[in-house]
């Protein structure tokens, strides 16, 4: 096992990773930009390195800064968290060259899975069901129109380099397709420096269900159950739960098998999530592989009792997977709500500011992951996630009632700071959500119906 791990991230996930390192007796190195100088993880970690100014491009996204921080502190591994460089094949390659263990898949695997077109091909070859699509990059507008004519509308145009809900747009009719195509190309070019896009049939009213997988270097892989992440705003997840409600055991098992097979086919080592769209007939279609820790991993932890970060570290250190099916059998249900400093009434605009009051819930079967403390300042440079509230219950209903109790305890106040607590409670109260019959359209429909997010 490692003796010192540098955590190449910030916010709640940096603290999350540092906690498990501490529990395993591994020394921790935090890194921080000037904006995060007084952060909780900096105080928690054994050492800290100031890696750059607030803009992520010169700090958390700067591979040279991170590699030099590793050299300076003598860490033997880097945990990238989620976002930032967590799925960057170049960073993983540099780490490998420098003799630093990257806690994640090998860089060629990241490269293959990061290109959404090649990931599609790979999973197709592994026999996973895919939505009908362009079968590769759609190089011209004409090709895009031909593909859409073949697939039928609506279609979704996606950036090859995209992921995590960014760089994608839906075209509902032929007339709008050329504009959608051009805009997605332009967005992809500006976001990723890679304008290539592909086209897939778009499923209305589908659910977003994902399988958590662990895989070692010795040919063992294991699914840790599924998560439903259909409650999304602008393709960004807001509420996640496990197990996905209402799926038949047969579908659940078939998805888990497909996910494990896909991960093995990709040669992936570590923790990964295979995302699927599931239609109302329980047909499921491969979406993408997230070859990293997910924001929503705690729901799986609460139900299975597995510390996924510990598993990542062990797997990255080359240890064999010692968990079997019997060790990861889920108990009960868990749900996570993301508390964001954002204003649902103003198109979810981030509302940075100082948290004068910051009170989060606790008590039975309630987990809180946060990097914030009273008096902390939420910087405009990074994502507006303040805290993750996770509750467990013997069944879905108990977990959801507990979540509503927990959200009612939240008190966060500060000048200019708006928090999405009320919207989260509205989701819990929504009849479709409560019945477990919701799809990715839920939040949009809720907001459209009320004309307001509150």
């Amino acid at each position, binding site marked *: 096992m490692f003796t010192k791990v540098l955590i190449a991230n910030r916010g709640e996930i940096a603290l999350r990773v540092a906690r498990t390192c501490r529990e395993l007796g591994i020394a921790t190195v935090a890194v921080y930009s000037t904006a995060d100088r007084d952060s909780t993880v900096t105080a928690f970690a054994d050492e800290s390195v100031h890696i750059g100014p607030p803009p992520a491009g010169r700090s958390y996204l700067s591979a040279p800064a991170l590699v030099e921080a590793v050299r300076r502190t003598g860490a033997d591994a880097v945990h990238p968290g989620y976002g930032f460089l967590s799925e960057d094949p170049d960073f993983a390659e540099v780490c490998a060259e420098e003799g630093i263990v990257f806690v994640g898949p090998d860089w060629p695997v990241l490269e293959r899975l990061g290109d959404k077109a090649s990931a599609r091909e790979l999973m197709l070859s592994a026999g996973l069901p895919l939505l009908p699509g362009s079968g590769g990059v759609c190089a011209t507008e004409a090709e895009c129109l031909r593909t859409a004519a073949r697939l039928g509308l609506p279609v979704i145009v996606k950036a090859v380099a995209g992921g995590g809900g960014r760089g994608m747009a839906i075209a509902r009719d032929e007339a709008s397709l050329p504009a959608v195509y051009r805009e997605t190309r332009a967005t992809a070019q500006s976001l990723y420096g890679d304008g290539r896009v592909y086209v897939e049939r778009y499923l209305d009213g589908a659910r977003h269900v994902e399988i958590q997988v662990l895989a070692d270097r010795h040919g063992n892989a294991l699914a840790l159950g599924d998560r439903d992440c259909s409650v999304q705003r602008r393709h960004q997840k807001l509420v996640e739960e496990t197990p996905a409600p209402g799926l038949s055991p047969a579908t659940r098992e078939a998805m888990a098998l497909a996910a494990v097979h896909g991960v093995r086919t990709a040669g992936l080592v570590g923790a990964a999530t295979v995302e699927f769209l599931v239609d109302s007939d329980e047909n499921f279609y491969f979406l993408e592989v997230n070859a990293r820790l997910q924001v929503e991993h705690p729901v799986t932890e609460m139900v299975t009792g597995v510390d996924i970060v510990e598993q990542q570290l062990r797997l990255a250190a080359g240890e064999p997977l010692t968990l079997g099916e019997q060790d990861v059998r889920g108990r009960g249900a868990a749900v996570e709500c993301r508390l964001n400093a954002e204003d649902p009434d103003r198109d979810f605009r981030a509302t940075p*500011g100082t948290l004068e009051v910051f009170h989060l819930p606790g008590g039975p079967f309630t987990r809180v992951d946060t990097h914030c403390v009273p008096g902390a300042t939420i910087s405009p440079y990074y994502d507006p996630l303040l805290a993750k509230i996770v509750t467990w219950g013997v069944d879905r209903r108990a977990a959801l009632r507990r979540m509503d109790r927990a959200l009612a305890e939240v008190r966060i106040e500060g000048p*200019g700071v708006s928090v999405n607590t009320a919207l989260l409670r509205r989701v819990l109260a929504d009849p479709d959500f409560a019945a477990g019959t919701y799809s990715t359209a839920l939040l949009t429909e809720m907001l459209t119906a009320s004309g307001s997010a509150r």
Partner: protein
Amino acid sequence: MSTPPTEAGQLVEELGRQARRLAAEVPGGLCRVSVRAGDATVELEWAASPDPRPAPEPEPEAGETDETGETVDAPLVGTFYHASEPGGPPFVRVGDVVAQDTVVGIVEAMKMMNKVLAGRAGTVTGVLVPDGDLVEYGQPLIALASGG
């Protein structure tokens, strides 16, 4: 509200200094500044919202000169070198007079050599980091007195 010459007043002053320093390091998009100490608050807000995309990465070659003008700080994490080659003459020595674009050292990060510029005119009063040491971002490298 006048600032009384008390500890709280000094605190406010220091906070203001930090805020200005932070603002200076950021390429653009500053949106709100709030300085508070106890009940005293100073708040400034600009209309434009900050750009959510990462700023284009500037070529990190100028050292960041801190606003007191006392030090030239490391513009990135890496190894600080006094000279352009092992055993070569150092870029600057104590007593040297430097101009804004004088190279005062090099920070090597991942085999890239990044020149550190003085950033302003002055006289070198100290070389604060030994040759070959690993430095973090913002670490003072060279002490610089104003003028020359």
